[in-house]
């Protein structure tokens, strides 16, 4: 991406490596540079957003009106399954790892990630994993169609796509675990002297906790899918009642992974928003320490709420009460975060550049997703909401204007630092306004559909659901088209534009803003001096 022009930075001029290697293979395939690997992750994630988004377009096209017009129900099920797998494992998670790669070393004054060779490996597994997963579309059995949750016995009916999907998931898991190890080792060992844990930016803190969640739960997913594999091919009966197993046990194991997983998707978003709101409010983050503790509390609670995804499997009353109460409890630290962000804006001096616009939209719309989450925690009501479009609306509110908006906010926030150029603010603002309008047209009516009784994962529906589905589909098409502006802005910014200053944003505060723009290929080869640390880290 950014061809380094760091000669002006005396600290680094004598460094052994002056810039990126020349050849494409040497530069991108064999790279151990955290910025190049970050770029690879981000480009990969963007590609997956568009592939997964195209699948969503197929879904919304078929649901535009009642009756089956375009696709077979089996193909429709493949689309919902693959959309989820591609967006979660190919879109959001790699985007966060990409942002971590780019920003964590620059934010803590480290020259690179702690384990650069492994960093390369953890990225380059991913394209193979997704080629394998996506190639299932060419099998006679089609792509996996049993839902991304892979519940047996249905997932065992998946034909040849089933072992391929499991192998792909194993590869993604290995990649994630290596990425997480790298983040933890970097944050624990590579911080510049003076950057204590409680002087780290919130993005580093949320990523540190995310990385622990990843290491704890990805092996659980690996175990669950391996048991599926042996049930299918080697005669075990872990999840088969006829052999003494239990199909529900898979769901417990899956969601013991799956619930922390949703926090893996959203905690780094909390970090990005905690960077952006102070910058554009020109005021330090309110309640820094309580933000750290709230994040840690959410991380802990995420391990004891898993069964709220499966209230209808027939659990004992005591189990239902326990999971209802722990789930409701999550609202407390999440509320603390929302209140702290609001208090950060309070008595600030606010401007609305694109990163702030996306962060403010996150604040409102993620909170709406939080409210529907609180409603879903109420078990008797959940019996009516479960597996309906109400749930679809809930998790898309927390994942699209939640996780994805904050990824976009992060990209718009740091892009000038990466490229050295300002991007086209007008087009970026168009991207924001179109996104924020259409995302609501797309997902808000799905609350109504779910409450009115429309189950999720159906390719066709009763005529009473026609109107809101049509609105939702129109919102979907609008949202999908609007996203084409995003790569346009990025491409133009990479190509050129008005030169960015080192600080880029008037209120920006952090070690990354002490570096030149674009950030040199090797940054902080020497630890930042004490006065830079004092200026660039949290003080309280």
């Amino acid at each position, binding site marked *: 991406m950014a061809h380094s022009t760091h000669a002006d930075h005396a600290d680094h001029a004598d460094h052994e490596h002056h810039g990126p290697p020349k050849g494409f293979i040497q530069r991108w395939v064999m790279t151990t540079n955290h910025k190049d690997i970050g770029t690879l992750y981000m480009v990969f994630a963007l590609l997956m957003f568009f592939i997964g988004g195209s699948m969503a377009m197929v879904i919304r096209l078929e649901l535009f009106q009642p009756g089956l017009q375009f696709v077979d129900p089996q193909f429709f099920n493949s689309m919902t399954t693959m959309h989820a797998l591609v967006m979660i494992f190919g879109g959001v998670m790699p985007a966060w790892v990409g942002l971590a790669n780019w920003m964590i070393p620059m934010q803590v004054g480290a020259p690179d990630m702690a384990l650069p060779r492994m960093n390369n490996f953890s990225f380059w597994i991913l394209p193979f994993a997704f080629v394998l997963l996506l190639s299932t579309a060419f099998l006679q059995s089609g792509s996996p169609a049993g839902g991304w949750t892979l519940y047996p*016995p249905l997932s065992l009916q998946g034909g040849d796509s089933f072992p391929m999907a499991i192998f792909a998931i194993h590869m993604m898991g290995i990649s994630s675990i290596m990425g997480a190890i790298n983040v933890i080792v970097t944050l624990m060992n590579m911080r510049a002297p003076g950057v204590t844990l409680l002087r780290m930016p919130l993005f580093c803190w949320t990523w540190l906790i995310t990385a622990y969640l990843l290491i704890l739960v990805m092996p659980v997913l690996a175990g669950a899918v391996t048991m599926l594999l042996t049930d299918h091919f080697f005669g075990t009966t872990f999840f088969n009642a006829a052999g003494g197993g239990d199909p529900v046990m898979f769901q417990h194991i899956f969601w013991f992974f799956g619930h922390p997983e949703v926090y893996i998707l959203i905690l780094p978003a909390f970090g990005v928003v905690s960077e952006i709101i102070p910058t554009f409010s020109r005021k330090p983050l309110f309640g820094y320490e309580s933000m750290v503790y709230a994040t840690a509390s959410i991380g802990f609670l995420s391990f004891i709420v898993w069964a709220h995804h499966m209230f209808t499997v*027939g659990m004992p009353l005591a189990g239902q009460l326990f999971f209802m109460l722990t789930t409701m409890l999550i609202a*407390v630290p999440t509320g603390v975060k929302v209140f702290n962000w609001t208090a950060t804006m309070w008595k600030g001096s*606010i401007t609305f550049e694109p990163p702030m616009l996306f962060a*403010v939209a996150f604040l409102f719309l993620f909170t709406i997703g939080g409210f529907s989450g609180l409603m879903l925690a109420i078990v008797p009501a959940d019996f009516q909401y479960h597996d309906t479009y109400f749930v679809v609306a809930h998790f898309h509110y927390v994942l699209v204007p939640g996780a994805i908006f904050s990824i976009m906010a992060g990209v718009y926030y740091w892009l000038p630092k990466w490229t050295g150029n300002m991007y086209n603010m007008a087009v970026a603002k168009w991207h924001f306004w179109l996104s924020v309008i259409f995302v609501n047209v797309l997902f808000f009516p799905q609350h109504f559909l779910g409450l009115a009784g429309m189950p999720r994962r*159906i390719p066709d529906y009763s005529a009473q659901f026609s109107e809101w589905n049509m609105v939702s589909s129109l919102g979907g098409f609008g949202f999908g088209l609007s996203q084409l502006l995003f790569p346009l802005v990025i491409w133009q910014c990479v190509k050129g534009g008005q030169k960015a200053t080192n600080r880029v944003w008037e209120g920006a505060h952090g070690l990354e803003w002490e570096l030149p723009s674009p950030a040199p290929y090797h940054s902080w080869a020497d630890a930042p001096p004490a006065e830079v640390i004092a200026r660039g880290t949290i003080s309280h």
Partner: protein
Amino acid sequence: MLRKSAFLGAAAAALAVLAAPAQAAWTGLNMTRGVSTLSGEIYSLHMLIFWVCTVIGILVFGVMIFSLVKFRKSQGAVPDTQLLHSTKAEIIWTAIPVVILVLMAVPAARTLIRIEDASNTEVTIKVTGYQWKWQYDYIDENVSFFSTLSRDSDAARQLDSGVDPKSVPDYLLSVDNPLVVPVGKKVRILLTSQDVIHAWWVPALAVKKDAIPGMMNELWFQVQPDKAGLYRGQCAELCGRDHGFMPIVVDAKSPADYAAWLASKKPVAAEPAAAAAAGGTPLAVAASAN
């Protein structure tokens, strides 16, 4: 605010375009109150938590919008960089949500305990899920039949069938043989499956539970005595290709009509095998429609 007004404008425009046909049914915005003894209570819980969220939302969004309008740099706002934390505020906004949640948990737990009390049921029906139909066994009554998507819906739902789904009555929500239950009696449903996991859901009865192969789940409902009628639902757990096409219809009849229906379905002593086999024939449909 610009953002709000832009959103409202776009939403209004979208509605205006789509609402043009006078017959457009903009109904179904909310959960049904239902017709069972507990469905109203569940609806009330839903509305309670909805209003709690709405009030909190108005307060929180109100403060956010106020900040975004009042503390704009373009309006000359000067940041108060000393406002870093406030122990008092942080205790308040931790404690108040805890209190609200405890107050919410009490009625929710009370209703949940009632839902889980399946004692003293009067009728027991075993429901078995198949890809993609339901089987209903009236325990101890020797009555058993399958329930599948009605033929006109099935014809219309084929890819490019050319049939307008809106011309089919109760499209995708009608079956050949509905489940018949008496009103005013506590009906126990035992749920299981023969292949993959399904879920049996009738919104008006506010019941949803998974039908799991090799396991037996239990739920119950009691239709209010004055609420005889047809109540429709769908499978609510992805179960393969035709997951969207295995509806549930519950026909709640008065106890007398139910007894008559049950008698008509019972095998005649002389030819029990033939009658049992007739469970799914059009003749039986005609009989059950009385």
